[in-house]
């Protein structure tokens, strides 16, 4: 009994691992396919539920040259914007698995799994399946951000699928601790200055604790017509020093006198 209770406690403490599903054609299809260069292909792939696409897997019977893999959003029944793509890689015989550096979040519906091969002698596997695929004549290059419009349809799909991580089925397994709260107090100060009527582009108001930072430090830009400015979020009860300059055509005047005060 004690062992059973310990086992139950152990199981309850384990994280709920996210499940995953395969989208696309994960079986090795019966017919050989070659002559796919210089074509960019994308096959229609249903997404049964929202999930995060982790990797792409493409089956090659006889490898030749290099490949790009990627996934496009579905836009009105056609491939649209590129959601993720792999860097170029040299294909090998069997399943070519490529993990996506930035796994895209997919919504339930459909996407288009795309590939581009550099060599038309590479042999892959395909069959007439699903809603088929589309193809465009395009020189071998990284996948474009948007799938080209000049497409022609195929009835076939290749052995090509993605692993998609589905959301956890249980809420977070432990509540956060009671929050600790630490308040910091801030004040607001208002500054005013005189200036003649000489045309200028504006002022720079420098405010800082210890030193105003004038010139060259962080500052607030103030329009030329203004003669007051309010600075917020200043540390409470800390002496602030302020100086101001006038600016015209990229040239800055000398710093004014220092005005000091505390927001308290």
């Amino acid at each position, binding site marked *: 009994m004690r062992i059973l209770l310990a086992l139950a406690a152990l199981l309850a403490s384990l*994280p*709920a691992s996210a499940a995953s599903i395969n989208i696309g054609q994960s079986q090795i299809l019966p017919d050989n396919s070659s002559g796919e260069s210089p074509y960019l292909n994308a096959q229609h792939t249903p997404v049964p539920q929202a999930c995060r696409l982790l990797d792409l897997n493409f089956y090659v019977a006889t490898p030749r040259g290099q490949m790009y893999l990627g996934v496009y959003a579905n836009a009105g029944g056609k491939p649209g914007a590129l959601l993720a793509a792999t860097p170029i890689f040299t294909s090998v015989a069997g399943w070519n698995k490529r993990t996506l550096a930035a796994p895209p979040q997919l919504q339930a519906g459909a996407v288009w799994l795309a590939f581009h091969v550099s060599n038309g002698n590479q042999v892959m596997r395909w069959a007439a399946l699903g809603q088929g695929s589309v193809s465009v004549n395009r020189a071998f290059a990284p996948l474009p951000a948007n799938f080209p419009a000049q497409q022609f349809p195929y009835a076939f799909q290749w052995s090509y699928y993605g692993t998609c991580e589905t*959301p*956890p*089925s*249980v*809420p*977070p*397994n*432990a*509540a*956060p*601790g*009671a*929050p*600790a*709260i*630490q*308040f*910091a*107090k*801030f*004040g*607001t*100060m*208002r*500054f*005013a*200055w*005189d*200036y*003649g009527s*000489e045309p*200028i582009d504006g*002022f720079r108001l420098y405010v800082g604790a210890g030193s105003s930072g004038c010139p060259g430090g962080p500052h607030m830009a103030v329009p030329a017509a203004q003669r*007051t400015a*309010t600075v*917020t*979020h200043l540390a*409470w009860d800390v002496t602030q020093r*302020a*100086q*101001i300059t*006038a600016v*015209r*055509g990229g*040239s*800055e*005047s*000398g*710093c*004014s*006198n*220092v*005005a*000091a*005060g*505390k*927001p*308290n």
Partner: protein
Amino acid sequence: MHIKITLAVLVAVALSLLAVAGAQAASFDAAVSWTDNSTNEEGFRIYRNNVMVGTTATNVSSFTDVGLAENTVYCYRVGAVNAAGETQGPETCAATGTVLLPPAAPGSPTIIYIGKP
């Protein structure tokens, strides 16, 4: 040459920054932190007085809430969230400080009687 003249004029016209015109009301920031006890959260929600005021990403267990008023009690609660739901933790309350201004000075005393009792 034109630039040199401009600079000279700007420097010559001394900017006079006047004394601080007056301090304004204080505001407060709250640094809120908590213990991350879950292993499958996708982020946290931060509630102030039962209203969500912010979120953080997975494993980020601190948040700064800005623009709070003085002399006010604020209660914070944090919820761990993922796609399946939310698990909330206990609430903590604290008050921002009070700024007590000194009372106005009384008027000068008036002598109303001099003499023997």
